[in-house]
């Protein structure tokens, strides 16, 4: 059979196809049998298979040294898409295992749960591999539609329903803004693909720079919603708090990483396309203001929370701000810094939610800080795990969170955003307060009669915690394992 040449190198689609096939298998398995215990394993097999294919393609691409495309350039296999696909799949795998350990208690064993997780991850892969704005939108919608449902998963829970509804309405609005931005960008350049937009804007007789700027701003707003840049972060605390905790963990790693992959590619292209001069300065300036606001709002918001889950939600906003510094820095250095930050954040975030899951009530409620009182003596290992994660998230050496912040600030300063980096460092000091509060409550505060006892940890959850902890320590001590690997890759930013 002869494929039309426009189809390109279809092998780059294999990880996405694997996830979709396993989503279908898991769904059929779920409706034909009553064997609920096997669903998580089947889903995990799919994620691991996709991960193996991604690594294989990545190695092959490094050896070949060129980006491959499929479907007429709509789908790209380059350093950015492989690195971010890798992070997404790691996060998805950890979230699947985490959900599996608590599946009966949290009613996560309906046949539809795991297929939706896999489809959301597949959408994430499409999002970071998109070579044009239409494919990007497609990936965003595949991912978002699945996550809207997952956020509202808890039956007869008002907060979960509220989370799903809020996320859906605001997400649909953001998608509409994004579509409008894509249309304006197309109107200005006549192209959807990133390479074409760059080429059209570079032409000497390109006159529609103002229109392109308008389109770029709308696209930025649409994506800023997904990564939760202030002032588009308002949905996040409510959605993260209301969604079932394993879904919150999934959102904080998979959805965030995928959206940042798309944001890096889009802003990289659009900032270059707008060029220098008064018009070219608007987009970075808007981005800088938004990122500064995000760091302030996220950290001070987290400071005011009395619930640990909600505190982690606000801190997710703050971390989005730090990754935003890398987006603003742009270029290869920015992409590499962002990938390290998101890679290590994935482990820390999932591990934090894993610990939290064993401290909350049966119905996934109750996350007040006082519950942690005396945990250091009653459950020393659990407390130590949470302490390490909190210190890493706060940015203490020698953990991965410290290196993550260091490379991000470094990239921002090198790109000439020293003032914003200083703001980032100052807000990181604020962050120490609320992370340390968790540690101090565990070790210094005496439990009273009402302090609930932490439940025994399912073995699978313990595995997630162990992986998260090990990665936080190992990649903190040896950051070169990721950074050198990424830096040595032939980095094909030319094609963005």
């Amino acid at each position, binding site marked *: *059979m*002869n*494929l*039309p040449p426009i189809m390109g190198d279809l092998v780059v689609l294999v990880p996405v196809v694997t996830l979709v096939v396993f989503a*279908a298998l898991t*769904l*059929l398995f779920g*409706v*034909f049998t009553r064997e609920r215990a096997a669903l998580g394993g089947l889903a995990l097999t799919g994620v691991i298979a996709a991960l193996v294919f991604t690594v294989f393609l990545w190695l092959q691409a490094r050896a070949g040294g060129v980006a491959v495309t499929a479907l007429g350039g709509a789908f790209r296999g380059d350093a950015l898409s492989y690195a971010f696909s890798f992070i997404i799949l790691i996060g998805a795998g950890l979230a699947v295992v985490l959900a599996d350990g608590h599946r009966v208690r949290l009613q996560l064993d309906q046949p539809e749960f795991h297929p939706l997780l896999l489809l959301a991850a597949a959408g994430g892969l499409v999002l970071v591999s998109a070579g044009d704005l239409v494919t990007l939108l497609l990936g965003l919608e595949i991912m978002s539609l699945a996550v809207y449902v997952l956020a509202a998963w808890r039956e007869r829970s008002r907060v979960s329903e509220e989370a799903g509804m809020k996320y859906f309405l605001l997400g649909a609005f953001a998608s509409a803004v994004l579509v409008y931005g894509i249309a304006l960008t197309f109107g200005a350049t006549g192209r959807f693909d990133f390479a074409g937009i760059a080429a059209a804007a570079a032409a000497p007789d390109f006159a529609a720079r103002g229109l392109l700027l308008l389109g770029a701003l709308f696209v930025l707003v649409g994506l800023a919603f997904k990564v939760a840049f202030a002032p588009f972060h308002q949905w996040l605390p409510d959605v993260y708090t209301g969604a079932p905790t394993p879904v919150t963990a999934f959102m904080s790693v998979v959805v965030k990483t995928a959206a940042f992959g798309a944001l890096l590619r889009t802003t990289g292209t659009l900032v270059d396309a707008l060029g220098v001069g008064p018009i070219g300065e608007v987009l970075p300036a808007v981005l800088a203001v938004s990122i500064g606001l995000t760091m302030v709002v996220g950290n001070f918001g987290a400071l005011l929370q009395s619930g640990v889950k909600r505190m982690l939600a606000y801190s997710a906003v703050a971390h989005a701000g730090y990754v935003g510094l890398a987006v603003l820095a742009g270029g290869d250095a920015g992409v590499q810094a962002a990938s390290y930050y998101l890679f290590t954040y994935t482990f820390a975030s999932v591990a934090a939610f894993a610990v939290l899951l064993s401290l909350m009530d049966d119905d996934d409620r109750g996350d007040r800080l006082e519950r942690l009182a005396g945990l250091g003596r009653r459950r020393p290992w659990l407390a130590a795990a949470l302490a390490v994660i909190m210190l890493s998230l706060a940015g203490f050496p020698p953990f991965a969170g410290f290196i993550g912040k260091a490379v991000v600030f470094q990239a921002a300063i090198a790109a000439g955003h020293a003032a914003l980096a200083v703001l980032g460092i100052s807000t990181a000091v604020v962050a120490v307060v609320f992370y340390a509060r968790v540690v101090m409550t565990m070790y210094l505060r005496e439990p009273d009669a009402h302090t609930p006892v932490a439940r025994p940890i399912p073995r699978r959850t313990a595995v997630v915690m162990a992986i998260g902890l090990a990665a936080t320590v190992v990649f903190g001590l040896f950051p070169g394992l990721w950074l050198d690997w990424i830096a040595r890759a032939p980095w094909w930013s030319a094609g963005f």
Partner: protein
Amino acid sequence: MYENLLMMFLAAGFIAAAALVVGALLGPKRTTDDLLEAYESGIPATGTARERFPVHFYLVAMLFIVFDIETAFFFPLAVRFGMAPQFLFVQAILFVAILGVAYVYVLRKGVLRWK
């Protein structure tokens, strides 16, 4: 190029506004119970439209979408089938397989079992 579009918006806005204004100025101001009905000459409305309806209908909607998408995709495919018969045939099979998953799912969920 966009002037035509602007003219169309203005014309549409003018006609809509004119219809409302002229109607309000010249129209007779009689209201009876019948005139205020949602369907003036239809059957009398009973109750509100904002009722809860059985969640079972989402399965019917899925069934509809499965077959609707299938036709929407197959018409253009049939028209262009001569271009690359083997390639399009494989594509059609894959497409039906994906829809088949949704179809089997809806069947197993009991879409045809009315209680």
